[in-house]
């Protein structure tokens, strides 16, 4: 296990943690006073704030870290958080950063339903309190032929699913993003059929590399990166790694994914990173790593072939793209 080293950030840019929390306390104090003047009942933190507090506490405790990007150094936080695809916030690469505040993450609950013995809708803090968090450094390869290396914080999806006891009929896992067109400007336009939906085969979902991420660079996930909880499937194109998940359903019959519905020729169900299967309109053989000039060769299964190729043994990957 390689110890992960953070890229150098000038000391001047870092707010000391004590100060950060003092500032927050001052802010919260101010807010509480204001609230107290209006309604004494609001003096106590609202239920929804619980997940933030819980997550920040856990993030502060030094998490185990696994470097799984072949020794490549992580992309800068700026590049990771200012060049995103998150159509709910707009189709421009900077839109998710600019309009990130439109995503209301507090309170947040996650529905886990379908073919599970323990179905229900759970406040995010209740989901988080059962999970051990860890850091995982993964490559991320977008279907648009750019890539990043990202230090996620999260937990294996398998842990969460097992806790809810899937039945023998659970063959696929369906994920849905929040649907909130009142706030999310992108959802007021029919670019995709909202809410965004992704699907994994149950063995893909249970694979130890498949992560539910809640943090990035040791901090709470920024909104543009899919806060407060998102999927990360490092061997598939980025669009499979659905953001801001509100619903996970285990099902027997597989529904279409949002991109499949939009254009099945271009966005297959599997969407495994494969330099030999081109997108109909562009090559997938190379990629632009953000922060680098030039192009690098795209790796089979995004460099995770050793771990995941067996999931697809015997399958014609030209056909099942």
């Amino acid at each position, binding site marked *: 296990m390689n110890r992960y080293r953070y890229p150098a950030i000038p000391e001047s840019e870092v707010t000391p943690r004590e100060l950060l929390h003092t500032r927050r306390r001052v802010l919260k104090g101010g807010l509480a006073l204001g609230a107290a003047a209006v309604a004494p009942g609001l003096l106590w933190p609202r239920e929804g704030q619980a997940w933030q507090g819980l997550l920040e506490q856990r993030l502060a405790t030094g998490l185990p870290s696994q470097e799984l990007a072949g020794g490549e150094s992580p992309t800068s936080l*700026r*590049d990771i958080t*200012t*060049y995103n695809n998150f*159509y709910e916030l707009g*189709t421009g*690469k*900077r839109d998710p950063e600019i309009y990130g505040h439109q995503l209301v993450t507090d309170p947040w609950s996650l529905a886990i339903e379908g073919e599970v013995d323990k179905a229900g809708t759970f406040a995010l803090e209740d989901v988080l309190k059962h999970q051990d968090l860890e850091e995982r450094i993964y490559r991320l390869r977008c279907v*648009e032929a*750019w890539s990043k290396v990202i230090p996620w914080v999260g937990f294996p999806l398998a842990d969460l699913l097992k806790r809810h006891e899937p039945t023998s009929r659970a063959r696929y896992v369906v994920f849905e993003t929040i649907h909130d067109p009142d706030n999310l400007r992108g959802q007021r*336009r029919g*670019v*995709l059929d909202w809410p965004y939906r992704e699907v994994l085969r149950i063995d893909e979902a249970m694979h130890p590399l498949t992560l539910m991420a809640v943090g990035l660079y040791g901090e709470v996930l920024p909104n543009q990166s899919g806060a407060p909880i998102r999927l990360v499937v490092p061997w598939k194109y980025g669009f499979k790694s659905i953001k801001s998940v509100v619903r996970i359903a285990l099902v027997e019959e597989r529904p279409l994914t949002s991109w499949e519905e*939009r254009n099945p020729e271009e966005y297959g169900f599997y969407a495994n990173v494969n330099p030999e299967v*081109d997108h109909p*309109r*562009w*090559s997938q053989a*190379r990629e*632009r790593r*953000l*922060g680098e*000039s*030039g*192009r690098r060769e795209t790796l089979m299964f995004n460099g995770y072939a050793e771990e995941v190729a067996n999931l697809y043994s015997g399958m014609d990957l030209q056909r099942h793209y």
Partner: protein
Amino acid sequence: MTQRTAIHAFRLLVLMGCSAPALWLAWQWFYGDLGVVPGEAVVHFTGTTGLSLLLITIAFSPAFRFTGWVGFMAARRQIGLWAFFWLVAHMLAWMGLDQYWDWPWIRREMVELPYIRYGAAALLLLVPLALTSFRRAQQGMGRTAWHWLHRLVYVSALLGVVHLWILTRADYLLPSVFAAVLFALVVFRLIDAAIHRQ
């Protein structure tokens, strides 16, 4: 204001309007405001500007027909050449800032990617138009031949819109606007031709 001054002022306005985006782009580049992949931003910006100017160039003829003001005809060559300039810049930005002058890859992309081919064809069609845009060329060719040749601008604009359309991933707002404008311009041109034939 005399007619002459008005035309001069309009030509100056076109000059400023078509060069200002270059200054803006240079400014953004210099201050690092073009985002994580500045090369990509330059490619998009030059292409959008070039195609917009190409459509505006085409729109100068109907603008003249509607208003009868010769200023549009007096500035048409200038704005057409600006469109050509921006589209050449677009191609160079793609080759240099996006492909890093990697010739084998540039060739491969041209062979494999339809939208690159459409874009290249659109630009190639504009070359004879730019070369024959000067008065002497126009006189040498004869007006009829010159007019026929310069109708290629419609084909070039169409290829440009197709280029943008097929490289778009999901959000078709911009290509739809370009397509609608081009459609309106073509319809106008056909109606105008029909009226004149009578």
